[in-house]
């Protein structure tokens, strides 16, 4: 033993006792010489309890040190006398630095005076819980939840405080509030858009009929211009409906080109911006709502244009993209068409970038903050993804990923006006008299005998009576929503239950309704959204009768 070489030494050992138990011991040894013989005088001290306490303390300290919450001790002056590791890292200080500071130097809401009054409150109530804001060494601030307890230790007064960083919770709360705000706005917008659509339908139909009737070219010219204005109003209500409930897209399998080129060129007409397209001929077909995707392209191109006040080039590139499983954080595996719209504009700071898809967020004086929020909602409804890359002064690039169509469905044919003649009896059910009048006139003009009823019960009664008499109808157009009466869905259900096989068409101003998107699932032959033009109704009948 080394103790031989020294006069005194001190060790810690584990000693085994007679009963087999093991004790922690501290051994103090001193060597002494008697008659030329070296001997060791050892005093053994049982330190088992002390060791255990030490270990418990170490564990406690480790627990506090690795805790994600900050733990502090402050004296009556607000000076930090202790801080755990989280307490220091959360604020960006070293422990040494933090212990030179006071609580009012890291709490954004506190001053020395306020601390004094707070100290008295804590002293009186012994406990104090609040939400507050802490300031890091770099000046940035973050929300915290504080729980403080007053206590006396060694005859001195202290406050022991825990602080939890609640940035994430606050962010989630803010998003929830935003979502609720968006939902109530959506309900309002959707409601107005629905009623407005019905009114537009009336105006639309009558002007359409008047334009056909008139022999006066000046009047025809005015009516055509009015129709164009109503067309714009219809697209506005369409946008409101899209935004209000995300709008279930009315998808059709189509080619994206030259649709993208046309939409982009139209959005840039009259500007000093040039546009370059890189769209391969073999671009996959996509299953999409032309109206909605048009809205997305329009929004992105207009944003790009506005970011380039001095002119420049906008590049629109499309690519086929196969995403393997688990390769992309937000995209499911599968085939996508990636549409990238790149501008040479001002670009965006990171702070702005994080908010651009938030509803009501805008950097434009006349913006409503709905453009990109609507884009986001549309692309989400298409099971796609919209992303952005941007740096201040470097321009921005928006990427839209649209799922490619599956199967070998051919692209939808463009509506072409072909002559159509109807015959037989056609029933129209709608609670709005002017809609009945318009449909009556349109259907009669192509040769039908038209029966108009204002609720579902009358429609069912009439058709069943005709069937009982051995007669049949050419078809029926049924309004889905009839306030206080039987709507189109129930009518279709009852008729189909009674083995009625005539073509049934659903119509609604609520264009996002599932029955409009999937009419067959409800016993309908097809659907048409309000407001519709004469040509659209005729085309529907031509296709299905």
């Amino acid at each position, binding site marked *: *033993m*080394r*103790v*031989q070489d020294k006069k005194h030494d001190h*060790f810690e*050992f*584990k*000693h*085994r*006792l*007679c*009963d087999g138990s*093991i004790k922690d011991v501290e051994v103090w*040894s001193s*060597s002494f010489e*008697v*008659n030329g013989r*070296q*001997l*060791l*005088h*050892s*005093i*053994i*001290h*049982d330190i088992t309890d002390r060791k255990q306490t030490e270990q418990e303390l170490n564990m406690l300290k480790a627990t506090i040190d690795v805790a994600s919450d900050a733990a502090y001790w402050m004296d009556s002056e607000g000076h930090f006398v202790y801080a755990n590791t989280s307490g220091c890292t959360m604020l960006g200080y070293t422990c040494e630095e933090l212990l030179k500071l006071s609580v009012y130097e890291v709490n954004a809401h506190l001053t020395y005076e306020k601390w004094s009054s707070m100290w008295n409150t804590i002293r009186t109530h012994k406990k104090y819980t609040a939400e507050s804001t802490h300031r890091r060494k770099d000046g940035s601030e973050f929300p915290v939840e504080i729980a403080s307890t007053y206590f006396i230790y060694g005859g001195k007064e202290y406050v022991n405080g825990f602080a939890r960083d609640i940035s994430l919770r606050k962010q989630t709360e803010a998003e929830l509030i935003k979502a609720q705000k968006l939902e109530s706005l959506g309900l309002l917008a959707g409601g107005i858009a629905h009623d407005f659509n019905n009114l537009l339908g009336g105006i639309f139909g009558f002007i359409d009929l008047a334009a056909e009737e008139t022999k006066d070219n000046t009047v025809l010219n005015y009516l055509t211009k009015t129709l164009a204005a109503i067309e714009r109003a219809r697209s506005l209500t369409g946008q409101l409906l899209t935004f209000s409930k995300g709008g279930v897209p009315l998808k059709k399998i189509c080619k994206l080109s030259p649709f993208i080129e046309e939409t982009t060129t139209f959005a840039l007409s009259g500007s000093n911006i040039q546009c370059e397209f890189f769209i391969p001929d073999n671009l996959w077909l996509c299953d999409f709502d032309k109206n909605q995707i048009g809205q997305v392209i329009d929004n992105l191109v207009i944003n790009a244009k506005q970011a380039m006040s001095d002119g420049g080039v906008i590049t629109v590139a499309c690519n086929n993209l196969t995403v393997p499983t688990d390769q992309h954080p937000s995209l499911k595996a599968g085939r996508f068409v990636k549409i990238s719209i790149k501008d040479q504009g001002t670009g965006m700071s990171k702070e702005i970038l994080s908010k651009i898809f938030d509803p009501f967020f805008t950097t434009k004086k006349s913006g409503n903050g709905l453009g990109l929020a609507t884009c986001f909602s549309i692309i989400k409804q298409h099971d796609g993804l919209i992303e952005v890359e941007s740096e201040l002064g470097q321009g921005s690039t928006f990427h839209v990923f649209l799922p490619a169509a599956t199967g070998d469905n051919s692209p939808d044919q463009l509506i072409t006006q072909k002559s159509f003649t109807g015959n037989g009896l056609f029933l129209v059910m709608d609670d709005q008299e002017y809609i009945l009048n318009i449909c009556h006139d349109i259907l009669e003009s192509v040769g039908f005998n038209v029966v108009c009823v204002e609720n579902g019960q009358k429609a069912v009664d009439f058709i069943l009576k005709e069937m009982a008499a051995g007669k049949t109808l050419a078809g029926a157009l049924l309004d889905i929503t009839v306030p206080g009466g039987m709507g189109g869905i129930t009518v279709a259900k009852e008729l189909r239950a009674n083995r009625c096989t005539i073509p049934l068409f659903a119509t609604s101003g609520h264009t996002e309704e599932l029955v409009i998107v999937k009419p067959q699932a409800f016993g309908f032959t097809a659907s048409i959204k309000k407001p519709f033009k004469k040509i659209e109704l005729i085309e529907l009948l031509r296709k299905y009768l």
Partner: protein
Amino acid sequence: MDIKNDFSIPDVLFKNHAAVILIIDPSTGQIFDANPAAVCFYGWSREQLQKMNIRDVNNLSEKELFGQ
């Protein structure tokens, strides 16, 4: 052997001390003597302890022990 006779260690410092005391031969580790407090702590009699080596008590391995 009787330590008291051989080395003249005062009884009061050894027998009556509340601290556990062992007298050990540092070259072999042999326990020469143990005081009553040591007998009480370890649980072996004085005679038993005097036949034991410190290695019988120490829970560290030989290597660890001599490394210290």
